[in-house]
């Protein structure tokens, strides 16, 4: 992952994304999803969130979701530095911090 600034509307579609899947993923799957942060939600879903370099990288992530067979619930781009994105689910308090290594 590069040092790309994550402002919405960037030419190559870099930004912070939240991918929500059904089922709880163990922490060890973070590596599989390129080191993004995994946050388990109380509704039985998992948020895979963090900085995505560009649209191609995002689609690569979605393919990995597909390959696990986990049903995809949603994909949202979120403001990197502000409190909440647009996903309307309760979340753990610290889930907007940058999680890329």
């Amino acid at each position, binding site marked *: 992952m590069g040092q790309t600034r994550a402002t919405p509307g960037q030419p190559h579609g870099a930004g912070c994304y939240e991918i929500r899947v059904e089922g*709880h993923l*163990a922490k*060890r799957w973070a590596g599989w999803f390129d080191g993004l942060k995994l946050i388990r939600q109380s509704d039985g879903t998992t948020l895979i969130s963090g900085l995505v370099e560009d649209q191609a990288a995002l689609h690569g992530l979605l393919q990995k979701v597909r390959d*696990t*067979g986990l049903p995809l619930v949603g994909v949202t781009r979120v403001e990197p530095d502000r409190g909440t994105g647009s996903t309307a689910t309760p979340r753990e308090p610290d889930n907007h911090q940058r999680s890329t290594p």
Partner: protein
Amino acid sequence: MPAALLETKLYLPRPRVGLVRRPRLVERLDAASAAKLMLVSAPAGFGKSTLLAEWLAGEPAAPAAARSAAWLQLDRDDNDPTSFWTYLIAALRTVMPELGASELALLASPQPPSIQVVLTTLLNDLGTASGSIVLVLDDYHLIESHEIHDGMAFLLDHLPAHLQLVIASRADPAMPLARLRARGDLIELRAAELRFTPSEAATYLNGAMGLALTPQDVAALEQRTEGWIAALQLAALSIQGRDDVTGFIAGFAGDDRYIVDYLAEEVLQRQPPAVRDFLLQTSILRRLSAPLCDAVTGKTSGRATLEALDRGNLFVVPLDDRRHAYRYHHLFADVLRVRLTDESPELARRLHRRASDWYAENGDPSMAIEHALAGDHFERAADLVELAMPVARRDRQEITLRRWLELLPEEVMAVRPVLSNGYAGCLLTTGVIDGVDRHLRDAERWLDVPLEQRAGTGTTRMVVVDQNEFHRLPAALAVHRAGLALVTGDLSGTVAHAHRALHLIDETSDLLAVDYDLGRGAANALIGLATWTAGDLNSARDGYLGSLESMRRAGHVADLLGCSIALADIQIALGRLRDAERTYDQALQLVADPARPLLRGTADMYVGLSALHRERNDFARARELLAISTTLGENGALPQNRYRQRVVSARIREAEGDLAGAVELLTEAQSVYVGDFSPNVRPVPALRARVWIRQGRVDDVRGWVHERALSVADDLSYLREYEHITLARAVLAQPGTGREAGLGTHDQASELLARLLGAAEAGHREGSVVEILMLQALAYRLRGDLPAALIPLERALRMAEPEGYVRIFVDEGPAMASLLTAAAGEGIAPGYVGGLLAALGGGQDEHVTRPPATEALIDPLSRRELDVLRLLGSDLGGPEIARELVVSLNTVRTHTKNIYAKLGVTNRRAAVRRAGELDLLSRTPGR
């Protein structure tokens, strides 16, 4: 083409013993035999492959529906179109061995044709085959290449009824599915149908797996897994031998964890430590074999463990009947790999390294590179890629090569000049310009560093693995520089770099084990291309002659044919018809070896010869040669031959007076036109405009002139010469002084011709000079200045005679006949002129088919009637024609009536057609 085909990829899986039979789905597949495409689309672990294996192993519903089944297990490497199509054809050959040999040869050739050409040939072969075939493409979701998707769509559009495609995929393929669905050509099985129904789940758990579960337990499992077969399998495996089954089921039914991960953990926990380690450590492998597993685990129990896993149904899938090769079920392998890299990332790297070493020692450099890259052993991967590069290039695996090189960190490639240069070459051959210059500079940098400093220290040390490639590097860099200059339109730069390359090859030739003939060939061809495009035909000819010589020495006969076409085109432009003929003949001699498979480009030689015989007025031979070219088929032809063949055929028809037929063929030629690097110096639309001029289709001609934005006042360039000569012809064909048509006046046409002549003479393009002189003679004749006309005509005749030109004069019809008669009267080239007049008058030579143009009307049309006739060929109405000719509408009507009577027709359209047949409109109106 992949160096060796992996047979395990073509293995038709056999259904496992004790499988849950799924008649409801098998019946649906059986019933769908009319559909072109069956799509089995569902996530991992839904039993797609298993179902298809069961279906194909069963008896078809009706005996008449007997079918043979071919299977292709795709993987990521198959995104290289050459690899994909090679495997697809190889899969078909497992059931029809007589099929596809020539297609495989085409794919393996150094200049493969477009995939459409290969597929067309394949479809032709399939069309003649008997018996029905089902072709399964498994894991199609791994294919992301648009080129392949397009090819598949083309294949589907033309699929013969006895071939059925089955695609198993985790994602819907990028194909026009809605269209196929609407036409009833598509049958789909999706997750909803594939998942186990409650009764199938019960049959599986209590039947196949021998568990004695209560209906409540089964229902709970079915509900929690939602019929997901992989999850049910894992559940069954973790339940086997457990006492508190109900408690276990209740435990995970209320758990939100990723079910496959959770259950795999349960299964792993229940294995002996040795088996658990084996599963984790070998999870990095794409294919499992005992020796490879032993190399990776460092143990010797590979065979026994694999067999035990097979017996225990622990997610290994056999890849052959001998039980020598397996793979893990993908979903299981992913779960294992995640666990391995999480628990011990360093071990994972080491395991990849061992796998890489094993593959390198066992002759599979590609897999050795894949594992080195997967384990982040970049130096190792770079070494391997450098060594694999010459073969990969030869086998045209540029796409794979590019992917490997792009996975290497920048700093690793930057100190390896052979790799940097190779990467630049990959980019150029895959049509990318961005980054070429930077990587060439990365490589060039090291050539400037004094020898003793190249060793450097640490990360700034130059690394070379392949010494022979390094010796060639200066020249190879210069060739790539020349190629880069060409694609960026820098013609003089192209020539300069290519000359430098040739010089460097000479300088370093004593260092090289083998002479660098390919480099020489490439550099000379680049010189040829650049100077040709710039209109310097003598240099272009010398370039191509040099390139041919090098390719002959290197034994690269396939490239040699393509070069011969370019050379002959240049020789024809130079007015050297006999040299051109020799070029084609020599090329044909080289490929004449009957032991050699038919080479692409052979048919093109016959088409070239045909054009030369047409020029000599020998239509019978010209047609024979075209027929030979057709017999050789697309297998023997370069992609450009499809349009070239139609052009030559059209020009024969035109010369025989079938103008409408010629236009039709030229329109077809334009629709199948494909360019290459050669300049398009005789554009098909210009050829068609010339026929329109003869037909008097003024509006069409005007449309072409405007579309090409041509004007008599244009600056001249070689690339537009043919169009400008055509424009001059169009202007001179206009009635009166030419002013009315708005293209320019006859005087302006004459000025244009004078300028064209100067340019053609300066460029030594004698072929063009002959035509321009001939047109100048016709222009003088139009003005009624016969003595002036004879001066350029005599020059043209003297230049044309030794080369045997005929049609260039004879195509002009009666106007030329009268000029030649006058020339004969002056005693100019009497023998030659006599022959031309005979061809115009027809008769003596039996080969000569007289164009109907010379068929005389009993009552010839007056000049004014010809003017009216010409306008009848336009879309002007009667009053507009009257205005155009500055006469009354009645006068136009009288003329029209007379024209109809003389031509024996009753309407305007027939009159225009008849005029075309009689070639009346190509005659320049007398003044």
